[in-house]
């Protein structure tokens, strides 16, 4: 239905810039599957967290000094002297943790319900780009307070690039702007940490654009057969998203006000010292599974029995870690099963939960020292992670026999009230 307004000014503007028509179509009438569960709340939550992060971040940037001699103190000043500075910083700091919590749940939802499958491949791939941007932003943000973990995390992660054959060491010097993590490094990380969130905003727009092309996937994973399978976004899902936001904010505020440093590391309240490495360097929890994959490759890969090394352990670890994300880009072409939802894939479902176990195990191993038995366990879990995407999903696409799919989205809900194509002209039934 075309957008109508009684307000003359709105009509005048909309005729010249149809922004009201656009918002009405995409946020109000936007037809959405009627059966979305609470697992579909995390996309909008992630968007809200992004806004919170940008708002608190800009305000803190006005108080922060990106210089190695002043950064640590300026953060302490924010905590002690700036009006509500402690709140801004704790919201921003824990906001990063919660951003990853909601985004990881959002991704797992997509993995389980096959949201990456046709026709949503590009939607999925933009999501992976957003994840990568988030990781880069979070990493550089963590460096800014210039604590011990900031400094040594930056050192370890930038040194990953030295594993690139031939040009690696030059690339690292270029990244640092010096011969170690130093003031030029801190300066450019601050500039990029400010820039990247706006790149994320741009990617989120593309993500939503691609989403609204075909609309949300749903727990049944089948396409809507007609208007009876969909309901308008407002008020149904605006309300549901707002309720989810309320629950989220309760948990978020509980952490911000009562355990703000629970997910942080005490070592980062010690100012960076380039001459002393902390006894145990651990990344933030959201990087732990990938860190465990990095450390799981402790062997060289070469031509057997010749002693020729093609990929040494260091490069192998780096390739595996980046590969763990890169494999997500091609996921839509690895899982060829035409059935989207895990509900109707009895074998897939078990491997999926095993993947979740592997990720939790990897997260735990990432926080342990690089010793046995942790390394061996990490290797098994890493092997399963890659096998899930590269071997199990392609094989299941051929071998698995899915359960029968329901005829339509509304059929299980309305007990036959909806019907298959042919009756699509029937208006949505009112209760």
């Amino acid at each position, binding site marked *: 239905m075309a957008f109508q307004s009684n307000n003359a000014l709105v009509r005048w503007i909309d005729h010249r810039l149809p922004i009201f028509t656009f918002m009405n179509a995409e946020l109000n009438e936007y037809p959405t599957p009627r059966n979305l569960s609470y697992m579909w709340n995390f996309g909008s939550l992630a968007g809200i967290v992004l806004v919170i992060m940008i708002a608190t971040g800009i305000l803190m940037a006005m108080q922060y000094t990106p210089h190695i001699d002043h950064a640590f103190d300026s953060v302490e000043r924010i905590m002690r002297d700036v009006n509500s500075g402690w709140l801004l910083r704790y919201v921003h700091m824990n906001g990063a943790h919660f951003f990853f919590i909601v985004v990881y749940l959002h991704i797992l939802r997509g993995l389980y319900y096959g949201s990456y499958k046709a026709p949503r491949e590009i939607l999925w791939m933009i999501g992976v780009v957003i994840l990568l941007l988030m990781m880069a932003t979070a990493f550089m943000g963590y460096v800014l307070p210039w604590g011990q973990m900031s400094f*040594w995390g930056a050192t370890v992660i930038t040194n990953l690039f030295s594993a690139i054959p031939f040009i690696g060491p030059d690339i690292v010097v270029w990244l640092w*702007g010096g011969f*170690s993590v130093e003031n*030029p490094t801190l300066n450019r990380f601050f500039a990029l940490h400010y820039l990247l969130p706006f790149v994320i905003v741009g990617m989120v727009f593309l993500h939503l654009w691609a989403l609204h092309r075909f609309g949300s996937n749903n727990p049944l994973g089948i396409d809507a057969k007609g208007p009876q399978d969909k309901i308008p976004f407002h008020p149904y899902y605006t309300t549901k998203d707002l309720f989810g936001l309320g629950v989220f904010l309760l948990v978020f505020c509980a952490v911000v006000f009562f355990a703000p440093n629970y997910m942080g590391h005490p070592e980062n309240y010690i100012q960076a010292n380039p*001459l002393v490495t902390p006894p145990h360097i651990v990344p933030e929890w959201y990087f732990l599974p990938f860190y465990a994959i990095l450390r799981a490759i402790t062997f060289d890969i070469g031509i057997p029995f010749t002693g020729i090394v093609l990929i040494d*352990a*260091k490069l192998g670890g780096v390739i595996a870690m980046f590969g763990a994300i890169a494999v997500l880009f091609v996921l839509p072409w690895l899982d060829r099963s035409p059935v989207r939802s895990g509900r109707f894939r009895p074998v897939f479902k078990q491997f999926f939960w095993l993947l979740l176990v592997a990720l939790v195990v990897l997260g735990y191993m990432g926080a342990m020292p690089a010793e046995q038995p942790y390394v061996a366990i990490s290797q098994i879990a890493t092997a399963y992670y890659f096998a899930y995407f590269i071997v199990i999903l392609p094989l299941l696409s051929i071998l698995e026999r899915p359960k029968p799919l329901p005829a339509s989205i509304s059929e299980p809900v309305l007990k036959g009230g909806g019907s298959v194509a042919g009756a699509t002209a029937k208006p949505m039934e009112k209760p």
Partner: protein
Amino acid sequence: MADSADVQHGVEDQSKRDFLYLAAGAVGAVGVAAAVWPMINSLNPSADVLALASIDVDLSPIAVGQSITVTWRGKPVFIRHRTEEEIAEAQAVPLEDLIDIQSDDERVEQPQWLVMVGVCTHLGCIPLGQNPNDNKGEFGGWFCPCHGSHYDTSGRIRRGPAPRNLEVPAYTFIDETTITIG
């Protein structure tokens, strides 16, 4: 007029246009590259950073068996006055046991002085072993706690994920007890 000329010389014009198209594109690409390079290069170490690239160190206060750490280019440099046992141990290691093959002689100017960048070649942590009560690893040299790399008394990698021996910086003895690093 122009239209009819185009029709008559269609084939010639097509190849001429392709040429102009490619030539203009190539010049444009070179121009963009020339404009982008200064931007990329601005991120490389600046003149003031490079100016701090060499230091002098007085070795005379360091007793046998002692180590000191100095800062060079923002990185720690380990200087160890090695004991006779450590030198003998480092020289006795068969080369085929090494991951990154290098004899002890190649790593020192004078055998009692071991000078090297104290940065693990794995991912850049500072190995332990400079203080007497540090964990020196299984080969009596240095041990990197981050990912478990063991270095021997010559700073060579013996076990763990690090691919190379601890780097020996360029340095020269300017007199008996003073070196210039860098």
